[in-house]
C-alpha cells in the first residue's frame, strides 16, 4: 500500500513539485514526513493550548507518533517501551495530577513578561537554525546497509547487549533500579502529608 501511495504521489505531483524533491518521495520518506508533521503539530499544540488537559492529550499524540518514528528506525523494542512507559504510565500520571489538583481549565492569561517571551522566541529561532544546520555541516552520508541495522532494535539484541557483562551497560542498569527505588521513596515522602 505504501508503494502504491508513493507511486500515486509521484505520478500526480511530479508535474508541479520542484525538481529537487523529485527523487525523494519513496514510501519510507513519505511516512517519515507524515509522522514528523503529526509530531510537530501536536507538540506545538502542547505549548499553545491553554488547557493543561488538552496539552496532555496532545502530548500523547506526540508520543505515539514518536513511537512510530522509532519503528521506522527499526527500533522496535524502544517503540514498544515508548508506548508503554510514556503514553501509558507517564501520561496517566500527568492527567491524574491535573485532575487531582483540579486544574482542569484555568484561564491562562497572557504571560506577564512579554520581554521574556520575545527573547525566548528569538533565541529559540537561533537555536533551531543552529540545530538544523548542525547535521548539514557535520554529517557524512555514509549510511550503513539495511542488513546491518535490521536486527539492531529487536528485543533479543537489546537484551543480549544490556545483560552482557563484557559491555558497559550492566552496571548502569543495576544503578537505574536504585534510581527508580529512590524516586519511589522520594515521591511518597513528597506527596504524603505526614510520614
Amino acid at each position, binding site marked *: 500500500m505504501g508503494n502504491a501511495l508513493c507511486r500515486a504521489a509521484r505520478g500526480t505531483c511530479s508535474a508541479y513539485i520542484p525538481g529537487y524533491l523529485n527523487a525523494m518521495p519513496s514510501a519510507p520518506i513519505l511516512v517519515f514526513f507524515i509522522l514528523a508533521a503529526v509530531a510537530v503539530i501536536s507538540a506545538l499544540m502542547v505549548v499553545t493550548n491553554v488547557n493543561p488537559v488538552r496539552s496532555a492529550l496532545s502530548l500523547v499524540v506526540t508520543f505515539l507518533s514518536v513511537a512510530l518514528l522509532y519503528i521506522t528506525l527499526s527500533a522496535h523494542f524502544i517503540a514498544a517501551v515508548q508506548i508503554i512507559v510514556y503514553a501509558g504510565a507517564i501520561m496517566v500520571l500527568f492527567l491524574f495530577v491535573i485532575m487531582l489538583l483540579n486544574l482542569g481549565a484555568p484561564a491562562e492569561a497572557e504571560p506577564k*513578561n512579554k520581554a521574556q517571551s520575545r527573547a525566548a522566541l528569538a533565541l529559540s529561532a537561533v537555536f533551531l537554525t543552529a540545530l538544523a544546520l548542525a547535521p548539514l555541516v557535520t554529517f557524512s552520508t555514509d549510511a550503513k546497509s539495511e542488513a546491518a541495522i535490521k536486527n539492531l532494535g529487536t528485543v533479543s539484541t537489546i537484551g543480549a547487549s544490556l545483560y552482557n557483562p563484557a559491555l558497559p551497560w550492566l552496571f548502569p542498569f543495576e544503578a537505574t533500579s536504585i534510581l527508580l527505588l529512590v524516586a519511589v521513596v522520594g515521591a511518597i515522602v513528597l506527596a504524603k502529608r505526614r510520614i
Partner: protein
Amino acid sequence: MPSYAWLIVWLPLLGFLHNAFAGYLYKDLAARKKAVSYIAPGVVLAAFVVTLAVLKNEVLTAADHRVIVPLIPGLSPETPWINIAGFKANFGLLLDPLSMLMAMVVTGIGGLIHIYATGYMAEDREQPRFFTYFNLFIFMMLLLVLGSNFLMMFVGWEGVGSCSYLLISFWYTDENNAKAGNKAFIVNRVGDLGFALGMMAIWSVFGTLSYFGEKGTGVMQMAARHVDLLGNPLNIGVVTLICSLLFVGAMGKSAQIPLWVWLPDAMAGPTPVSALIHAATMVTAGVVMLTRCSWLFVQAPGALQLVGWIGLATAFVGATIGLVQSDIKRVLAFSTVSQLGYMFLACGVGNFTAGMFHVLTHACFKALLFLGSGAVIHSMHGEQDMRKMGGLKKLIPRTWFVMFIGTYAIAGFPFLSGFFSKDEILGSASASPWGNGVLLYGVGLLTAFMTAFYMNRLMHKTFYTDARFVDGELHAHHHSNFDEHEDAHGADAHAHEGANDHGHGDAHGGGTVHESPPSMMIPLYVLAVLSVLVGIVLGPTKIFEHFLEPSVARLDLGPLAEVTPLVPEIVGWVISGAIAIGGLTLAAMLYGSRKQTGELTTEASKVKNPLYAFLANKWCFDLVYNKVFITIGGKFADRVLWKYVDVRLIDGAVNGVANAVGKISGTIRKVQTGYVRNYALGILFGVVALLVGLLAQWTTLNR
C-alpha cells in the same frame, strides 16, 4: 658517638616547665618555693657541667674546633625546622669556641646568679614565677648563642627580649616598673627590626641562614671566600648594608647609642635580673652576634667604622652620666652601657677577640658588682640611694670586700681581669685601621679614667664615708606584688636563712644592717675569685686568643690591613694601670676629704651647674626622644596618620570599594528576578552561544 650538647639547651627548658607548673606539683607554697629553689639553679649548673664536658669531648677534639649537632637528640643536624619553597632553616646547634664560651658564661655565671637569687627572692611570694622566667631566659639565651643559623639566633634573641620584659616589670604592681618593661621592649623592637631586615638581606644574598654548612655552603664560609650564593664576588655595598642592619639589632639589644635609653630604666627589675640579663649575658648578645658575623663585618669597612664610632661614643657618654648618678644600681647600669661601648669599640677596630674577652671579664666583675650592690640593698632593707648610705664597711665587711674587688677589677687596676681586657681593647683602638688611633685611644683612656673615678666614688659613698642613716631604724623599701603579711608567711619555711636571718619583724619597722645569707655570699666569693683570676690566666698567656681563633675572622681577611699599635704592649700596660690608679686615687682624694656628707658640693649648687644638669639628664636623650617621638611623633600620628591617612585614604579606599560594590550589585541584582524561567532563558542563551561556537569551529575544520 652521639652528642650530648642538646642537654645544655634542654635542661633549663625542663627547669622552666617545672617552675611554671610548680603550682600544680606542690600545693603548699613553702614546699613549692623550696623545690623551685633547688631545681632552678640545679638545672643551670647541670647545664654548665654538660657544657664543660661537651667542650672537652666534642669541640676540642673536632677538626677546626667546629661541629654541628642536632638540637633534638637522634635527629640529624640537617633536619629542617622550616622547609618552604626553597627557604630552609635547620634545628642545629653550632658548637665552636665562641658558642661554648658564651654557653659557659651563660650557664656558669647564670648558675651563680641563680643561687644568689634563691636568697634574694626568698621572701617573695612569687618566687616560682621569678625562677620560671629565669630558667626560660637561660634557655632562650642558650638558643641564641648555640643556634646554628640566624633564625635560631633570632628566636633566642626575641625570647631573651621577652624574658627581659617580664623580669624588668616583675613587680608589676608599681606602674614605673611596668613602664620600664614596656620601654625596654619597645626600644628593642627598633633594633629587632634591623636584625630581621639584616637576616632577610643575608637570605637574599647567600640563600641560606646557616653560619656554617657542608662543603662551604654557610654564610660565613661564603663570606670568607668573598662570594655570594651564585659564586659572584661579594658587593661591598650590600655587605655593608647587611652588617649595618645587623648592627642596628645589636644596638637595641646591647644598649648602644641611640637605642641605649632602656637599659638604665631596666634597673627597675630585681637585682639578680640586672646582674644576669642587663649586665652579664643578654646585653652582650650584640657583641656575640657581631663576633659571630665577623666574617661579614671584615668585608664591610664602612659598617665596622660605624660600629667603632658608636661604641666609642657610647662608652664615653655612659661613663660621663655614671659620674653623677646617686642610685647605686644606676651607676652600675651606666657603667654597663659604657663597658658595652668598649666591647663595640673593639669589634669596630676589628679586634673581635678583645671584644669577647671583655664580654667574659665584664660578665664576671659586673655580675659581682651587681650582686654585691644587691647585697648592699638587701642589707639596707631595699634602700638604693647612695646619699642615704655610708659607713657600711664596718657593718657588712664581707660585702664590702667583694665589692672592693669588683671595683678594682672594672677600674682596670693592674693585673685584675678588667685591666687585661680593657688594655687589649685600648691597644687595638690605638691600632685603628682608619688612622684615627690617637683619638680612639685618647677617648678610650679618658673613659677608663672616668670609670675608675665613678666606681671609687660609689665605694666611698657607700662604704667609707660616715653613715647617713640610723642603724636600726631603716625603713623597709620592700618590693612585692602582694601584701607583706602574706609574703612573710611564704618565706617562713625558707631554708637559706641561718645565722644571718634578719627575721621578718624588723622588715616592717626599723631594721638593722646585716650581712646577706650564705646563698647570696657564696656566689659573690666565687665571682670575686673569677674577677681576679680570669684576666691574668687567660689574657697575657694568649690562651683566650688561641681558644677563640677558629670562631673569629681576622681583620686582614677583608680589605683592611692590620696596623701596629701606637705604643708597645708593655708601655700600654703602664699607661692603662696609671690611668686606673689615677682615677681611683682622685675619687679617693675628693670623697675621702668629705667624709661627713659624701658629696662634693651641696644639692643646691648641683642644680645650678648646667653641666651637672646635662649629665644628670642623661645627655637629654630621654627629653629629646620624648619631644621627637612622643610629642611631635604623636601629633604627626594623630593629625596626619590617623585623621588623614587612616580615615581618609585607607578607610576611604576600603569604604569606597564597598560602596562601589554595593551600588554595582544593586544594579546587577535586578537581573536576579527569582523567576525560574528567566534563569532558564539564561541557560538557553549559553547553549545557543556554545552551539554557534561549535558550529563555527566545525565549519572551519571541514573547510
